[in-house]
C-alpha cells in the first residue's frame, strides 16, 4: 500500500461463479487498495481469467458482490464500472487506425472532437506511438500492438486497469522489455491494476501483492517476497520460485519447540523451528529451495547424498539434478554457480541451509516459519 490511502479500489466479497453447474470460482474475497498492482497467478484453469472477467463485467458472478471505488457494480455494464482492460490478443479493431482505436471509447462516450484529439495525442506521447497514429494494426509489430492496447485502456482514465496475460503473445526479449514498461507506467499513473498471468516471474517482478489461485480458490495473498519466504502451503511453495522448491518426504521423530527432528531415508535431520507443533510419527514434507542446497566442501559431511543425473548450464548459473539415495520421487535441483565443478554420475554430498528450509504437514499446510525469514514482513523488489 502506498502512502496513507485508505479507500478500497476493488473489493470482492465471497464471489462465486459456476458454468453449467461446474464451479469455477468457489468463493473469493479480496481487497485491492488504491494504486496497488495486484497480480493473479496460478496454473491454467485455476479461474484467474474468469475472476478478471467478473471484475470487468464480461461475466456476472453466480453469487457474491463486487465493488469498485465504493460502488456496487456486481451487475453493472462493463463500460459503467470505471475499468479498462488489456486483452491477451490485444483485441485491436483491425479496420481502424491506431488513433481511431485509442479514440474509440471516447467517441462512444460522445466527447467533443477537440478533447478526444488532445487526449489521444497525450496518450500516444506517453506510449511513444505518435509516429504510428495513422497506421492500421496489421502494420504494427507485436510490441507496438501491445502499446496500442494499453493506450486504449489509459485514454479512458479508468479507476482500475485490468490486464489479461498481456505479455504471453510476445517473444521472450520483448516480454522482458514490456514488463519493465508496464511497471514504469503503473508507477507513473499510480493506477490501480489487476494483472493476470501464469508466469510467476511476471508476478514476482510486477506485483505489490500476489494472489495465488488454485482450482477456484485463493491459496495465499501477500507481497512477492513474503510468498517466497513464507509460503502458506505446498501449492504456493511449488508455484512461486523457479526452478520450483524441492519437496522431500519424511517422518517426524520429535518436536521440541526449538526444532523439528525428522527421520529421513538418509538418517536424522533437525530443522530449527520455534514453537512448531508436529505430532511424532506424522508424515511431513521438507521443502528446500534450489539455492539453499549446496555441494558439501571436501571433508565436510553434509546432510544428504546422491548422484548427479543431469546438469544444465545457463552460463551465469548451473542447475544440477541429483537423485538422493533412498528417497522416492523426483530428483532434487540445486542452483549452483555458473562455474561449479560438477559432472554427470558424480556422487555428491549436499548441505542444506536448515534455517531456510520449509516444513509442510500432511494437509500441505506450512509448519511454522523458517528462522531466517521469521522477522521479515516485506521487501518487494519490483521496478519502481
Amino acid at each position: 500500500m502506498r502512502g496513507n490511502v485508505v479507500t478500497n479500489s476493488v473489493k470482492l466479497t465471497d464471489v462465486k461463479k459456476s458454468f453449467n453447474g461446474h464451479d469455477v470460482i468457489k468463493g473469493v474475497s479480496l481487497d485491492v487498495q488504491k494504486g496497488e498492482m495486484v497480480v493473479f497467478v496460478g496454473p491454467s484453469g485455476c479461474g484467474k481469467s474468469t475472476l478478471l472477467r467478473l471484475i470487468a463485467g464480461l461475466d456476472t458472478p453466480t453469487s457474491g458482490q463486487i465493488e469498485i471505488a465504493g460502488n456496487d457494480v456486481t451487475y453493472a455494464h462493463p463500460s459503467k464500472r470505471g475499468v479498462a482492460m488489456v486483452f491477451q490478443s490485444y483485441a485491436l479493431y483491425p479496420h481502424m487506425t491506431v488513433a481511431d482505436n485509442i479514440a474509440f471509447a471516447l467517441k462512444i462516450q460522445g466527447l467533443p472532437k477537440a478533447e478526444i484529439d488532445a487526449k489521444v495525442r497525450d496518450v500516444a506521447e506517453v506510449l511513444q506511438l505518435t509516429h504510428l497514429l495513422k497506421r492500421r494494426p496489421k502494420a504494427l509489430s507485436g510490441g507496438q500492438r501491445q502499446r496500442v492496447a494499453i493506450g486504449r485502456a489509459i485514454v479512458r482514465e479508468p479507476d482500475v486497469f485490468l490486464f489479461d496475460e498481456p505479455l504471453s503473445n510476445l517473444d521472450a526479449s520483448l516480454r522482458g522489455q514490456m514488463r519493465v514498461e508496464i511497471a514504469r507506467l503503473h508507477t507513473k499513473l499510480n493506477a490501480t491494476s489487476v494483472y493476470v498471468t501464469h508466469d510467476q516471474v511476471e508476478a514476482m517482478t510486477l506485483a505489490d501483492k500476489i494472489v495465488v489461485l488454485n482450482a477456484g480458490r485463493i491459496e495465499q495473498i501477500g507481497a512477492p517476497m513474503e510468498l517466497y519466504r513464507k509460503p502458506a502451503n505446498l501449492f504456493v511453495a511449488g508455484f512461486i520460485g523457479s526452478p520450483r522448491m524441492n519437496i522431500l518426504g519424511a517422518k517426524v521423530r520429535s518436536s521440541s519447540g526449538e526444532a523439528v527432528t525428522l527421520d529421513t531415508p538418509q538418517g536424522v535431520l533437525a530443522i530449527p523451528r520455534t514453537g512448531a507443533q508436529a505430532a511424532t510419527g506424522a508424515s511431513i514434507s521438507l521443502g528446500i529451495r534450489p539455492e539453499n542446497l549446496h555441494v558439501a566442501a571436501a571433508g565436510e559431511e553434509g546432510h544428504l547424498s546422491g548422484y548427479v543425473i543431469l546438469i544444465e548450464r545457463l552460463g551465469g548459473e548451473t542447475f544440477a539434478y541429483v537423485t538422493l539415495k533412498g528417497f522416492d520421487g523426483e530428483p532434487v535441483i540445486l542452483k549452483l554457480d555458473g562455474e561449479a565443478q560438477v559432472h554427470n554420475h558424480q556422487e555428491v554430498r549436499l548441505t542444506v541451509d536448515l534455517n531456510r528450509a520449509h516444513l509442510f504437514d500432511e494437509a500441505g499446510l506450512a509448519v511454522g516459519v523458517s528462522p531466517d525469514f521469521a522477522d521479515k514482513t516485506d521487501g518487494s523488489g519490483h521496478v519502481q
Partner: protein
Amino acid sequence: MVTATIDTGWRKHLPVLNAFLRYGILILVGFVMIYPLLWMIGGAFKNNAEIFSSIGFIPKAPTTDGFVNGWKTSTEYSFATYLLNTMKIVIPKVIVTVISSVVVAYGFARFAIPGRKWLFALLMATVLLPKSVLLIPQYLMFREFGWLDTYLPLYAPQAFATEGFFVFMIIQFMRTLPLDMEEAAVMDGCNSFQVLTLIVCPVILPAIISVALFQFMWSMNDFLQPLIYLSSVEKYPVALALKMSIDVTEATSWNEILAMSTIAIAPSLILFFAAQKYFVEGLTSGAVKG
C-alpha cells in the same frame, strides 16, 4: 562437352512442349466455354439474316440496328422501363437481404438463444428445401395479402433472412472473428447494436459484399418469381421483357434480343469486376482463419 546430366535430343524440349500442350488445351476449352457469350455480343451487331447463316461471331457488316430497335421494344414501353423495373426489384432485395442476413447471423453466432441448435438446423433445412415446393402456398398467401402484381412478393420475404445460405455464410465468417475484439468494444461502451455496426460489419465487409453480389446476380437473372407474381407489362423486369419479345412476334428479331441481352448482363458484369477483390476474398477467407 557433354555430361551425363545434360538431356540430349528431343527430350530437352519437353518442358516447352509440355507448356504448349497444357496452355493449348486450357485456351481451347476456355474458348469453347466463352464462345456463346462472344456469339451473343457479335450477334447483337449483325443483321437478322446473318445470324443463322454462319457460326462465326464477327459480324461481316456491323450494324447497331439491333440496339436501336431492341431498345424501342415491340411494346409501348422502352427497354429503359424494364431495366428500371429490374432495379426496383433488385436493389431493395439486395438491401433487405444483407441487413436481415447479417442480423440473424450475428444472433446465431454470438447470442445464447434457447434452442439455438434446433433453430440453426431448421435454418439449414430451408437451404435444402426445393424452392418450387413453396410456389403455390406462397402464391396463395400473397394473394390474400393483396400483393399480386406488385414487387413486394419479390423482396419482402428476404427481409426475414429467408436465404439460409447467406446466413450460413456470414455465420461461418463471424465465427472466425476473435471474441476479444467484440468484448473490447463492449468494455469501450458499445451496446450489441453498436458492436455489430461499428466493429463486426466493417470487419466482415468481404462477406457482406459477397452476399450482395450473389443476390444481385441471382435476382437479375430471376425469371420464375416475376413471371408468377407480375401480370402488367409495365411492371415487367428485363428477364420477362426479353422472353416476351420472343413470343409476341412471329418473325423474331434475334439481333434485337441479343443486343438487349448484352445490355442486360452489363450491370452484373460491371459490379462483379468492381467488387472482385472483395468478392474473391469473401468466398475464401471465411473458410480459413488468417
